[in-house]
């Protein structure tokens, strides 16, 4: 059964409205900004140790705090300002050399929370640390700029479940790992739906409508996924595949404006060295083909990739060859139109700590303000984040 039949058969009270509204919404996004920017958020979950990712190799305090974990000058891939990348991040180093990477140090927020759970919620919702907001900043962007409830493909998370960041009050992004697999699943469900109810309750109507919209959105993505042909080799791990999926959708000209991907496992309380090294390699190895792919397709000026983690780690190592939960951290912005390629601000200040943790100097919400303005044609205030101005990250 095709979608038209399904909608006809499902007898939605709002059928007449539904179809045009959905198509309208997606065309609205396209018409609005046919070659508009695309934001790719990459989340390193578990609290990535930023100090062993972008290493302050010229700072003695770093070696004093981490006698067993510190990386030496001869090991790191040299950047600038006395800093260098973890030796496993050759891909990222190449991106840096091309001028496609801005590294921001000291990114965090006031009264930091050291629980993964809470700190992740703070990053996702954009709330102050003493408030719990129940919707995400990108979800509220969908609320503000996409027609209510529609366009589930405007924001895609390549994952099994949808993160808080992608949940608005009314609209939500779509979590999808493989468009073909999801399309098969949903088509099989729709094929075997019961005949339409005559007078559905409002929530039953909502369920049928969500299903119809999902089928339509997934069908659309499946088409883009089929058309998008990647030319680069991506590493064969889950994160590599997820970045390849995003590249494929972008190359297939999906109208999606926000993509979200995650690499987990950074909670390195014990034996950090090997574990973090392996994860950073996975990350870096997937980012290089992605960025090169965007360059080859002349998309570097449109695509912005941001990488963050819910917090950094304590400056001093612990007794188990690892590090404990910390606060401020570095954050990466990649793209072809950066105002400050390289290390955008000062190296982490290891001399002035707050109970052993770095002090934040850049609030992550001002980074969001930049992204909302530059990539999403919006502003921090219109997604309920008040009092933060863009930093001017983009040229």
């Amino acid at each position, binding site marked *: 059964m095709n979608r038209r039949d399904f909608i006809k058969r499902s007898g939605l009270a709002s059928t007449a409205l539904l179809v045009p509204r959905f198509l309208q919404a997606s065309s609205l996004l396209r018409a609005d900004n046919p070659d508009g920017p695309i934001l790719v958020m990459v989340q390193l*979950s578990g609290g990535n140790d930023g100090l062993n990712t972008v290493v302050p190799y010229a700072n003695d305090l770093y070696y004093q705090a981490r006698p067993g974990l510190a990386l030496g000058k001869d090991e790191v891939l040299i950047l600038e300002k006395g800093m260098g990348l973890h030796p496993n991040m050759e891909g990222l180093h190449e991106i840096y050399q091309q001028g496609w990477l801005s590294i921001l140090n000291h990114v965090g927020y006031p009264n930091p929370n050291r629980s993964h759970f809470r700190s992740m919620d703070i990053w996702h919702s954009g709330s102050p640390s*003493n408030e719990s907001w129940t919707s995400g900043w990108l979800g509220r962007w969908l609320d503000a700029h996409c027609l209510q409830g529609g366009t589930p493909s405007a924001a895609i998370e390549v994952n099994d479940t949808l993160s808080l960041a992608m949940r608005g009050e009314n609209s939500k992004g779509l979590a999808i790992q493989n468009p073909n697999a999801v399309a098969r699943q949903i088509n099989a469900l729709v094929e075997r739906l019961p005949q339409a109810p005559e007078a559905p309750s409002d929530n*039953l109507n909502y369920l049928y409508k969500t299903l119809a919209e999902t089928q339509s959105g997934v069908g659309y993505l499946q088409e883009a996924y089929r058309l998008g042909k990647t030319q680069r080799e991506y590493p064969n791990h889950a994160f590599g595949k997820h970045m390849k999926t995003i590249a494929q959708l972008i190359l297939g000209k999906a109208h999606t404006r926000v993509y979200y991907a995650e690499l987990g496992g950074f909670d390195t309380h014990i034996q950090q060295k090997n574990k973090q090294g392996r994860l950073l390699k996975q990350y870096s190895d997937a980012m290089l083909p992605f960025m090169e792919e965007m360059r080859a397709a002349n998309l570097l000026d449109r695509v912005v990739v941001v990488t963050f983690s819910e917090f950094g780690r304590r400056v001093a190592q612990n007794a188990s060859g690892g590090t404990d939960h910390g606060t401020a951290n570095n954050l990466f912005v990649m793209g072809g139109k950066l105002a400050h390629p390289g290390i955008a601000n000062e190296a982490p200040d290891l001399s002035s700590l707050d109970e052993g943790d770095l002090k934040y100097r850049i609030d992550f919400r001002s980074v969001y303000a930049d992204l909302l303005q530059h990539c999403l044609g919006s502003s921090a205030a219109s997604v309920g984040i008040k009092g933060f101005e863009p930093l001017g990250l983009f040229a």
Partner: protein
Amino acid sequence: MTLQETLHLFWRAGFGPDPTQVPRLVQLTRAEAVDLLFQDAQDYSPMDRAEMPASMRWRKQMRNNPEDKKAVRKFNLEQLGDMNIQALNEFAFSRAQLREKMFLFWHDHFACFVPFAYMLQLHINKLKAEALGNYRTMLHTVAKDAAMLEFLNNTQNRSRNPNENFAREVLELYTLGIGQYTEQDIKEAARAFTGWNYDDAGAFWLVERWHDTGTKTFRGKSGAFGGEDILNTVLDDPATAAFLAKKLYAWFVSEQPHTEREKEIAEVLYSSGYAIDQTMRHIFMSDWFYDPKVMGNRIKSPADLLTGFRRQVGLTFKDEQVLFALQRILGQTVGHPPNVAGWKDGRAWIDASTLVFRMRLGEALLSNSDLELQTRDLPEQPSYGKLDKLQTELSLQHFYELCAGLSDTELTEFICGVTAVPQNKLHSRIRPVQAAWPLEKKVQHVLLETVRSPEYQLC
């Protein structure tokens, strides 16, 4: 009661009726059915999977012995996992359906999580014990509960350096509700709660030297108030009853607010001195509770969906740990609310991916088939291992017995009727059974058609 009213009552006041009992339950009057729910609610089991540790001062212990940190965490995670499974099994199999459902409500209301199993177990058992008791008692008990004091940072609330988190949540989430108090109220209340802490055994402990004994001015009254005075002041305010009534209405009746009905609930709550049982009885006995617009128009929470299904088909999991992954994907892990505000309810349960998963789940459980269950790796949450295969055993014997001798139409109507909300004549819209099929196949077919319908997502 009609079949629809019966299902409605047992879904809202529990996790759906046992299908074999439905023919008996429809014979009852409304008052008899409500009495039965309250009577059965007496027969419940407290949670007992966590072991009492040598000391409840986990945090201190972890700080002092970084080497033990991993062991402490592992010890707790395993027990938290066992507790989660016990909670879900009680939902599914306890006779005390009303108490279990009320517990889930209070667990959502007093949303609290600490990674210390025994402490959380004490908290949960307090909620279960008082679930149908008195809200005044419950609030005082929960406010002096170790898990709550820990979760809301009141252990750091000291006279010289007050931490307002606990006071704020008491006013915002448990009593008056947002907009009904000032920032000054919070500051003064926080002073009254200074020094509220817990001892090594997890019992309430007022640390005198951290307690601010000075005069506080709270909502127009001045005195050397302690935390108890603050709680009593806000409980004496009808705004607390109004706030709780709204929450009860939204949870047990409808997401669509209804001013008059909420006011009615608030009056019962307030005039009864916060008697929860009387208030709930009033709700379940009201005609408006059986308003056709209300019945069958609530989106099942993940706990409702999983539990209701288990109750209907006598489902057992070869390895119950698969429940962790299922809850995670569905978006509700019992014992671990997402934040202080609890779970977002109703339509918030549904996004494109969860809806597809929910609709495929019933079929996968019935047919013992694969479902992708690899879940993301989340630190500090009970992740309890990963399982990607559903291995289930069903017992559908009760349906075969109940359906023996029924015509195909009767069989279809019966199974659809007792498993899904009997609205919209689902039984007449699914693909029909074929006369030549054996009974077992007919039963399985109708069940399958029902559990994968959008209608099955409602209760």
